[in-house]
């Protein structure tokens, strides 16, 4: 085989294989093409692109698809706030829906001064792991463990673990994606309207004496606040819970709470 024929042979073989592949791909692209709604791309562009998953979908593109195809509500995007809802409403020709900014709140005030450790936990620094060891090292079995699982998952670093081992959400930074709510093994974090300032900072479902033993700022279930709050605070078993759908303007509840677990911020 001379040099020229071998060069020709080589190029011919590679070109031939390439051509065959190219034709196959071109045919596939033509006959197997899937029509995608062009609005999905546009809606994705309008969304903030944080991919936080706060809407309950896998990411902004997935939510866009749900909005366009399944006609899902357009007010699920917490980071986008009102401006994105307006944009989406304008683009899709829907009525703009109102959304109040919601922020995460850790419903526990028992820091390490108030609710001491039961034992020395020396395992991996993760709330789920700590919770699994003997029900957690905190004296209260419902309180914040302070190992920062929520803080690590927060996409905008809005959650601080204080020096006294408790998680605190900074509402100004919180984008309301809800990632921390899904992470907390003790389900302490709740999404609440950002405008509200009076909270029951306790999630203990234990009875009064048990709570009192475990924590200095726990809800003992005395029901004093429910009488003052005019329906905006209700008892769920031995625990007082603020009903954020009702107005709560009587600040006396903060003063009168014998457990000192109701705070105004």
């Amino acid at each position, binding site marked *: 085989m001379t040099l020229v024929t071998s060069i020709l042979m*080589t190029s*011919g073989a590679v070109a031939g*294989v390439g051509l065959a592949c*190219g034709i196959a*791909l071109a045919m*596939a692209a033509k006959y*197997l093409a*899937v029509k995608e709604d062009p609005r999905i791309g546009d809606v994705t562009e309008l969304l903030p692109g944080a991919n936080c998953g706060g809407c309950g979908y896998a990411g902004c593109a997935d939510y866009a698809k749900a909005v366009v195809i399944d006609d899902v509500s357009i007010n699920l995007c917490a980071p986008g706030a009102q401006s994105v809802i307006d944009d989406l409403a304008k683009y899709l020709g829907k009525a703009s829906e109102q959304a109040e900014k919601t922020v995460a709140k850790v419903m526990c005030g028992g820091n390490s001064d108030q609710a001491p450790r039961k034992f020395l936990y020396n395992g991996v*620094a993760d709330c789920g792991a700590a919770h699994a060891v003997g029900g957690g090292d905190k004296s209260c079995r419902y309180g914040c463990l302070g190992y920062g699982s929520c803080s690590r998952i927060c996409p905008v670093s809005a959650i601080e673990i204080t020096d006294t081992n408790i998680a605190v959400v900074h509402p100004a930074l919180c984008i309301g994606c809800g990632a921390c709510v899904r992470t907390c093994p003790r389900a302490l974090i709740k999404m609440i309207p950002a405008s509200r300032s009076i909270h029951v900072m306790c999630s203990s479902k234990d009875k009064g004496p048990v709570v009192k033993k475990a924590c200095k700022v726990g809800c003992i279930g005395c029901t004093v606040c429910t009488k003052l709050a005019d329906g905006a605070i209700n008892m769920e078993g031995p625990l007082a819970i603020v009903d954020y759908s009702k107005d709560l303007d009587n600040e006396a509840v903060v003063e009168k709470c014998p457990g000192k677990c109701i705070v105004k911020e």
Partner: protein
Amino acid sequence: MSQTVIEYLLLILGAVLVNNFVLTRFLGICPFLGVSKKISTALGMCGAVIFVMTLASAVTWPVYYYVLHQDGVFGKDLTYLITIVFILVIASFVQLVDIAMKKFSPKLHGALGIFLPLITTNCAVLGVSVLNIQLKYGFLKSTVFGFAASLGFSVALLIFTGLREKIDRANPPRAFQGVAIALVTAGLLSLAFMGFASLVK
């Protein structure tokens, strides 16, 4: 059991444990380190790798014996083109599968879609195709070997991901955090797999 069945079982066992693609042959290290942070993404990657490697083995074998080989359509020995032609064929084939999958199985596409282009021209995929030729396997044996090799990759990736998830929570010293401790872990895992060395001859 018949001789062939035993032979194939040993082939699979050998590819998964003894000559594990990642830990013994050191192929496919990029996805091994790149997508081993979370089990859920690692699982998606495993699915894509098993899919691509098995099919790539099945596709490259005929290309070698009917196009590049002495007895192929060109009638000349073109086997020195193996690397470039295999890359070309595998890349286009995966693209083709991607298009077909989008049409016929959008669910599967949703699960594997983003991983398919990532794995297309990975060295593990090319490695298994070339090894099939070097070891002179037949068509069926090549395909089974491709599947077994990808299974071995998946086993290694899942073990490694599980380890990394735990290690990340265990607060390693600052200098070791992230990739450093991951590489140490990978090395130890590779040593552990050497224990299988004489399992299958």
